[in-house]
């Protein structure tokens, strides 16, 4: 049993730090039994509940903390973090602004504001807030990570990589920094390096392994196919139809069909071969719906490419049309991939439930 609020506060922090979230929650609640209106403890409770991914409960605790002490910047920052998790970006921005207003010289408020703005797709404002937060404490790992995250979201890979590298210069074992660099490498198709880095991160933090990220080569190839195939197949079909009138165009359509098929195959090999077996092994570990949608997407893509090749070596334009029509299920499977991943995230689930209720 906690002897004082400060005592409970410190104990809960230490317990949460070593991953004992349930014990930390118990200690905070013991402390709250002594002083139910402690904004500080309620704020810690919100933090612990957020770490346990119980976002609705965390939000309730953060609201209670604000009600207990409206001038507590930490409570507003915690509320903003929870709202980001709940996909309520615009509400998160409001809370984060309040946190930054209450403690303008503390970087934490500005950094959470940057993350909230980034989640709300207000990229430039997010970059400004992150830069301001970092200026207040230039050697802050959290600040650098936020800058890296926000820059990556804004599509500024070089700036993001520089910030992530700065994190690793301060804390070489930082998992998130290493993960960010791996994902930036993935975006630049530095497959081998990215997979090696992701594997290293997983080795050091096996219980927090991001298996979904480790399947990026497969999902990346599918994403490429989802974009390239409809375009290539559409032009092929258009040319094939034109060939009914101008027969010379038919040869060009078949040639194009072959080129599209081989470009797609080449892209797939370019990504999947250096990635090795790891993405396939991780695919078995991702949520069931995502896994099934990915496999279905791969099969559909394979069939579509085969149809394009078949059209190139035959004259049946219907084959090219079938390849084009297969783009629709590929996009559906892509959507299901995302839904499958979202089902594993309590924040997404909560957001979907809220949307469903508001639509009723």
């Amino acid at each position, binding site marked *: 049993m906690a002897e004082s609020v400060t*005592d409970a506060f*410190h*104990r809960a*922090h*230490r*317990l949460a*730090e*070593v*991953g*004992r979230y349930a*014990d930390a929650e118990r200690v905070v609640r013991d402390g709250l039994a002594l002083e139910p209106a402690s904004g500080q403890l309620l704020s810690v409770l919100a933090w612990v509940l957020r770490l346990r991914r119980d976002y609705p409960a965390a939000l309730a605790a953060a609201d209670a903390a604000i009600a207990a002490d409206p001038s507590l910047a930490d409570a507003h920052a915690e509320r903003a973090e929870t709202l980001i998790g709940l996909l309520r970006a615009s509400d998160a921005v409001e809370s984060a602004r309040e946190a930054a207003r209450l403690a303008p010289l503390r970087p934490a408020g500005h950094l959470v504001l940057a993350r909230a703005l980034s989640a709300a797709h207000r990229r430039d404002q997010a970059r400004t807030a992150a830069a301001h937060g970092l200026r207040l404490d230039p050697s802050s790992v959290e600040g650098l990570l936020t800058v890296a995250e926000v820059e990556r979201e804004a599509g500024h890979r070089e700036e993001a990589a520089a910030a992530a590298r700065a994190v690793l210069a301060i*804390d070489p*074992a930082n998992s998130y920094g290493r993960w960010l660099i791996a994902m930036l490498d993935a975006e630049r198709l530095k497959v081998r390096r990215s997979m090696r880095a992701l*594997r290293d991160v*997983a*080795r*050091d933090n*096996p*219980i927090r*392994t991001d*298996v979904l990220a480790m399947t990026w080569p497969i999902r990346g190839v599918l994403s490429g196919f989802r974009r390239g195939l409809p375009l290539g197949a559409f032009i092929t079909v258009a040319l094939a139809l034109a060939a009914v009138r101008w027969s010379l165009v038919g040869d060009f359509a078949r040639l194009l069909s072959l080129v599209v098929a081989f470009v797609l195959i080449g892209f797939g090999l370019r990504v999947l071969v250096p990635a090795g077996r790891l993405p396939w*092994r991780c695919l078995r*570990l991702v949520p069931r719906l995502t896994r099934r949608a990915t496999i279905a997407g791969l099969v559909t893509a394979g069939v579509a490419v085969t149809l394009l090749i078949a059209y190139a070596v035959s004259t049946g334009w219907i084959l090219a049309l079938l390849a084009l029509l297969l783009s629709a299920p590929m996009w559906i499977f892509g959507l299901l991939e995302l839904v499958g991943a979202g089902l594993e995230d309590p924040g997404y689930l909560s957001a979907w439930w809220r949307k469903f209720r508001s639509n009723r």
Partner: protein
Amino acid sequence: MSDSSLIDSLAAAVEARPDDLPLRLHLAELLVAAGRGPEAIGHAAQVLAREPGNTAAQKLMTAALGGAVSSSEEAAGGHAAVEEADAAYESSEKPPTQGDGIDWAAMEEDLGDIVPPRFARADDEAEPVRGHGDRVFDVETATITLADVGGMEEVKKRLEIAFLAPLRNPKLRTLFGKSLRGGLLLYGPPGCGKTFLARAVAGEMGASFISLSITDVLNMWVGSSERNLHDLFQSARSHAPCVLFLDEIDALGHKRSQLNSSSMRTVVNQLLTELDGVDGNNDGVFVLAATNAPWDIDSALRRPGRLDRTVLVLPPDKPARAAILQYHLRDRPVAGIDLGKVADATEHYSGADLAHVCETAAEFAMRDSIATGEIRMISQHDMLTAARDVRPSTDGWFATARNVAMFANESGEYDDLAAYLKKRKIR
């Protein structure tokens, strides 16, 4: 032919045919019968090294070890394992002047005021031992032994080979140059009896038992963890032989790279210092640690000389499950329960899950008794229905363990776990 000449002839025969285990066993038997236990130990050990399950050799070893203890030591303690362990220390680590002729009981009594008691008496209640200042460490005497642990033969065998056998066999230890330094890490899913096993090991050794967990550290020691951890180890040293059990070592010795607060880092640093025994001699202090998350432990803690031996404690096997079920049903009204069948239906259940199954079955029977107004016994049907209702709580742990075996087993430290997961087709 006298016993002695028969032994000599047999010894010559064994020397000529060292692989003839029955002959070696016979020689050991004669040696024990002739009261030459210490000579028999080596022969029994060689048989056990090749056939660890040889019960005749095990019995002979026990008899040989029992004979090796002096009568004065028997009077002092009564626990053969304690005495053997103690004798092991005296013979290998202490100066030769501390020979067999010393009456330890008398000496303990004489020096009782000067040095703390070496052994806690089994008939006494747990005696709180005060460290410096007002800190209190509960030193217990474990009364359970490995024989009290149902089933889990593999784990017991591993414990015997990795920990207890070197301790009990000073000669073999010397022969193979095996050090007694280092500790043992028990890891596995929650609720599978790691703490119970640790107590059983302490009981097996007849050693004192001190337990420490993260809650103790946070409850007592915020701000003074270094000094208190040192005092705790000192207390264990003064009660040698003593098993110091570090529960939830993943929290006490969390990866320092993941810790932000300096106080928690200090705990890890101090733990490392104490395990190394830089300030004090750790002879006679056996560190056992338990965790559900060995992957969160600072790698420095697992280096040689520290927690360098690991034993995977899996959910109980069938005999263990039957024993656990029987234990939890012992004071309940039961009729016609086939423990074997219930054990079959509860594969992969932890000890805690099995307790829950018994509790749920009791609820079913009680609910019916209340509804009908007629008391009825807990039946086989109740037990099987409860087993279907209660899901094994170990599944989540194994899902995490799968990632560990997949990504963090490059050095082979989780080979046991990987093999088990493969057997269960979890990978």
